[in-house]
């Protein structure tokens, strides 16, 4: 059973090196972005402000909000990268983060080596990746290119490989920042099926997106963020 509990979470980004004098007012709201506040003479951007929610199996969350409203920060809080300055986050279940699907890959390494590099960054052991290699190579359609350094790949080929590795196993909790679309028309059809499959198997999905139709198609709840605050949670027909 997967479960996410977020209680009164606030995240402040300290901005070092910014001219504190140029912010004459102690508190200042901009049209976009989080709140910029002063805290003991240092400038902080409050990216999340007192956010609380609970997610259980079957929850498919669409995170919406304008640029800088805290969507990506919230995803990174859930992935465990940012520990909040206030509040608690409890995540039960294996997380797969699709925030940056080529993280850990190296242009100078071969495609084959990169499968393992990416796999390790995703939290797998080499012997867990081993049995998946054939399937990944087949799916990415790279053929013998898999033994060539990744710098020889076109950007589309590199993306295919990153996508194939990142989606090779399902996880209980899936975090996504925008939908992944890769490759030419034919491949993108195949990729769509694979992604839908991974998304379908996940018990909890958190998808940040600006695309309303995408969220309607994949989610059953919408959480709206504005200036780092959770302004509304609505259930949508799915």
């Amino acid at each position, binding site marked *: 059973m997967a479960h996410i509990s977020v209680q009164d979470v606030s995240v402040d*980004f300290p901005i070092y090196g910014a001219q504190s004098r140029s912010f004459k007012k102690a508190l200042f709201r901009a049209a976009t972005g989080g709140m910029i506040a002063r805290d003991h003479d240092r400038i902080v951007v409050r990216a999340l402000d007192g956010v609380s929610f609970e997610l259980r199996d079957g929850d498919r969350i669409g995170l919406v909000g304008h640029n800088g409203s805290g969507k990506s920060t919230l995803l990174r809080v859930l992935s*465990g990268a940012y520990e909040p300055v206030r509040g608690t986050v409890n995540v039960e279940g294996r*997380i797969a983060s699709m925030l940056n699907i080529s*993280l850990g890959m*190296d242009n100078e390494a071969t495609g084959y080596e990169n499968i393992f*590099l990416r796999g390790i960054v995703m939290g797998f052991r*080499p012997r867990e990746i081993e049995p998946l290699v054939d399937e990944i190579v087949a799916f990415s359609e790279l053929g013998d290119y898999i033994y060539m350094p990744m710098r020889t790949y076109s950007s589309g080929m590199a993306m295919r490989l990153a996508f194939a590795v990142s989606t090779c196993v399902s996880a209980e909790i899936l975090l996504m920042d925008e939908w992944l679309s890769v490759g030419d028309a034919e491949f993108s059809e195949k990729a769509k099926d694979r992604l839908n499959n991974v998304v379908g198997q996940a018990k909890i999905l958190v998808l940040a997106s600006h695309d309303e139709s995408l969220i309607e198609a994949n989610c059953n709840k919408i959480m709206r963020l504005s200036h780092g605050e959770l302004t509304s949670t609505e259930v949508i027909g799915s």
Partner: protein
Amino acid sequence: MLAKAMRDLRVGILSVHVWPTLAWQEIRQRYRRSVLGPFWLTISIGVLIAGMGPLYSRLFGQDTSSYFPHLAVSFIVWMLLASLITEGCTSFMVAEGLIKEGRMPLTVHVLRVIWKNLIIFAHHALILVILFLFYPPPLSWALLLVPLAILAIAVNALWVGLFLGMLCARFRDIPLIIQSIVQVMFFLTPVLWTPGALGRHAWAAQWNPLNHLLEIVRGPLLDGRVAATSWAAVIGMALVGFAFVLPVFARFRARVAYWV
């Protein structure tokens, strides 16, 4: 918070499928498409030692057969210490992407730096093998302590790397300061000169922690000594170092993601 810091350390150290891979990848990335790879650096250090050995033994009026091995061992271990310190500063900064993405323990990034530099040290050790053909080290049981001495250096590098990594991620001027300090320490530490040359000012070497880290490797290799005082100093450094760094790490570990 201390529990989380201890967990970070434990999980990090046990991630033996992660940090060696990252370390090797970094070396391969740097030397890909070069035929000799890290051995290029080994060659340049070898040439440097071969040139400086005879010259400086005359300048310092010392016997070449004792000065040469001293210089070679000291210099190569110094290279290890210096790069552990300077790269320890940037251990978190260069891993920004990984740190901002997820749950990899921070300890992994420090261990990556340590492992990478041990691999490079192993390349340089080839110089010592060649040197010992001409100036064989005294055979004694103390030689068995050499691998342990390298391990002791690595253990100390872990707390230093955790501390400097955090400090430098927060204050970006520190790496530059540390670099200058390391450069100065090269001349203030008995690398080019022998501690014995200090005469009644020997305290200057005794109070230099870097000297003790050199000495635990140098002692057995040069004159079959255990270097007990230096071992005590090195073990003491590790204990005091971790006692100091653990609370700091517990307090600021979670902030590193915001700093890098």
